[in-house]
C-alpha cells in the first residue's frame, strides 16, 4: 500500500528533512511513526498525502507514484486517503454532521447518499447522538472523533493520523486510540505519527522510529533480523 524507497527530502535552505528513508507498509497493517518533534514524522505524512514531493527516491501510495503525480491526480489520491491532525481541522461554523457532509459534497458525491453515509460514520465513531453539535460544544476527544469520521466517510484504504492524540487528555486518548484500532481491524491501513511512547508500548503494532530524518528502528525489520541470528 505504501512504499518509500531511498527517499530524501531537502528544505529550500538545503537542510535535509529526510535522509534515505526506506520502508513498505502492506495491506491491513497498523504502523506507529515515532520520534521527537523535527525527526521527520510530519514530513513523511506530507509526502504520503502528496502535500510535498520527495527530493529524491520513490514514494508510492495506494498505486500512485507521488514523484510523478500530476496536479489533476492529487485530488484522486487524496480521495483514497483519510487524514487526521492534532488540531482536528473542523469548520467551527458547521455542525458535526455538516463537517462530514462537507467532505462528501466537495468531491461531488451524490447528494441523496450523503445523509446516510454521514450517519453511518458518526455511529461508527460513537457520536450519532451529537450530530447536530458544533465543534465548540464538543470535547477535544469528541472533536477528534468527528475528524476521524470525516476521514472515514470516503472509505479510505489508508488512514493517516498525525499526532491524533496530541491535544487530548489520557481518557480521550485511550478512546481515540481504540477507535483507530477498530478501524484497522476493519482492514484499513493506519499510519499514526505520535511521540506518546506509553501508547506505543501498549500494543504489538509495528513501530518505525525516526531520528534526525532517518529511520533508526523498524520493529518489523529489526525483529526479523534478531530472529535469524
Amino acid at each position: 500500500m505504501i512504499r518509500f524507497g531511498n527517499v530524501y527530502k531537502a528544505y529550500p535552505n538545503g537542510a535535509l528533512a529526510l535522509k534515505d528513508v526506506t520502508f513498505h507498509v502492506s495491506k491491513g497493517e497498523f504502523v506507529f511513526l515515532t520520534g521527537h518533534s523535527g525527526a521527520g514524522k510530519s514530513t513523511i505524512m506530507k509526502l504520503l498525502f502528496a502535500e510535498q514531493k520527495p527530493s529524491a527516491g520513490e514514494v508510492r501510495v495506494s498505486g500512485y507514484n507521488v514523484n510523478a503525480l500530476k496536479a489533476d491526480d492529487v485530488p484522486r489520491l487524496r480521495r483514497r486517503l483519510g487524514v487526521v491532525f492534532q488540531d482536528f481541522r473542523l469548520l467551527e461554523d458547521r455542525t458535526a454532521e455538516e463537517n462530514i457532509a462537507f467532505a462528501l459534497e466537495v468531491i461531488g458525491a451524490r447528494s441523496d447518499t450523503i445523509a446516510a453515509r454521514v450517519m453511518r460514520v458518526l455511529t461508527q465513531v460513537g457520536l450519532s447522538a451529537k450530530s447536530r453539535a458544533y465543534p465548540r460544544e464538543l470535547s477535544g476527544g469528541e472533536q477528534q472523533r468527528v475528524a476521524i469520521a470525516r476521514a472515514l466517510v470516503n472509505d479510505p484504504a489508508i488512514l493517516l493520523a498525525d499526532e491524533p492524540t496530541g491535544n487530548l487528555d489520557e481518557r480521550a486518548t485511550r478512546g481515540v486510540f481504540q477507535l483507530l484500532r477498530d478501524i484497522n481491524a476493519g482492514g484499513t491501513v493506519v499510519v499514526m505519527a505520535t511521540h506518546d511512547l506509553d501508547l506505543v508500548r501498549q500494543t504489538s503494532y509495528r513501530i518505525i522510529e525516526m531520528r534526525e530524518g532517518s529511520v533508526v528502528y523498524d520493529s518489523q525489520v529489526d525483529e526479523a533480523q534478531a530472529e535469524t541470528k
Partner: protein
Amino acid sequence: MKLLTREALLSFRRAPLLSALSVTTIAFSLFTVGLFGLVALNLRQALRGLEERVEIVGFVLRGTPSEAIAVASQDISGFPEVKDVSYVSEEEALQRARNELVEFRDAYRDLQVNPLPASIEVRLKDGFRDAATVERVAQRLRGFGFIDDVRYGREWVQKLDSLRNITGLVGLVIGLAFAAVAVVIIGVTIRLTILQRAREISIMRLVGATNWFIRGPFLLEGALKGLLGGFLSLVLCYAGYLLFRDKSGGTFAGLVFFDPEHMVLIVIFGVLLGLAGSLVSVGRHLKHV
C-alpha cells in the same frame, strides 16, 4: 451546482460587511467609468449636432443651364458618402441673404442685378464627416465644369476631427485606468474572503476536492458581486445624471442617458471585472498552499 450556489451565497451571509464593501467598491469604480462614459456620450452627441452642419457648397457659374445642374445633382447624390444635395438658385440665394444678413437688407433691396451665384449644397452621411472625406468629395465637385468654386470650413472640419479623436482617446485611457483599479480592488476584497476561508479551502484540498471545485464558489461570488456592483453603478450614474440635468438650470436639459444596450454592457463589464478579480486571487492562493 446547487452546492456551488449555496457556498457562494453563504459568503455573503457570513461576511456581510466585507461583501457590501466589495459590491460598493465595484459600484464606485464602475460609477466613475460610467460617469466618464456619460460625459463622452454627451460630448459625442453634441459633436454630432455640430457635424450635421458640415456641408460642402459648390458655386455654380452664371448661365449654367438648369438641366445640367439637375443631372449633376442626381449624379452627386449617388456618391456613397452623400446624404442629400440641394440646389439653391440665384433668387433663393438673394432671398436668404436678405433674411439672414439684416444689416445689408437695404443694400440688397435696391439691387438691380442679383450679384449672388447659384449653388449646390451637399450634406454628407453620418460617419463620413471627417476631414479626409470632405476633401475628397470637394475635389469631385470641382471636377464638374460648371462649378466655379467649392467652399467648406476646412479648418473647422479638421478641428472637429481632432476633437473627436481626443475625446475618444481620453475616454478610453481613463476608462481602462479605472477598470484596472476596479480589478485590483475586487481582487483584494476576494483575497480577504479567501484568507477568511483559508481553513475551509485547506480542508477541501485535504479531502480531495479538485481545484476547479474550490474555485467555483469564489468565481461565482466574484461574478455576483460584479453584477450587483454593475447595477448599483447604473443607479448611481442615473442619480448623478438627473441631479446634473435638473440642477443646471436648463443649460444641460438636452443631456442623454445610456441606451439599454449600454446599460447591459456596463453590467456585463461589472461581471467580467468580478470574475477577473476573483480568478487572479484564487489562482494565486491555490498556487501558494
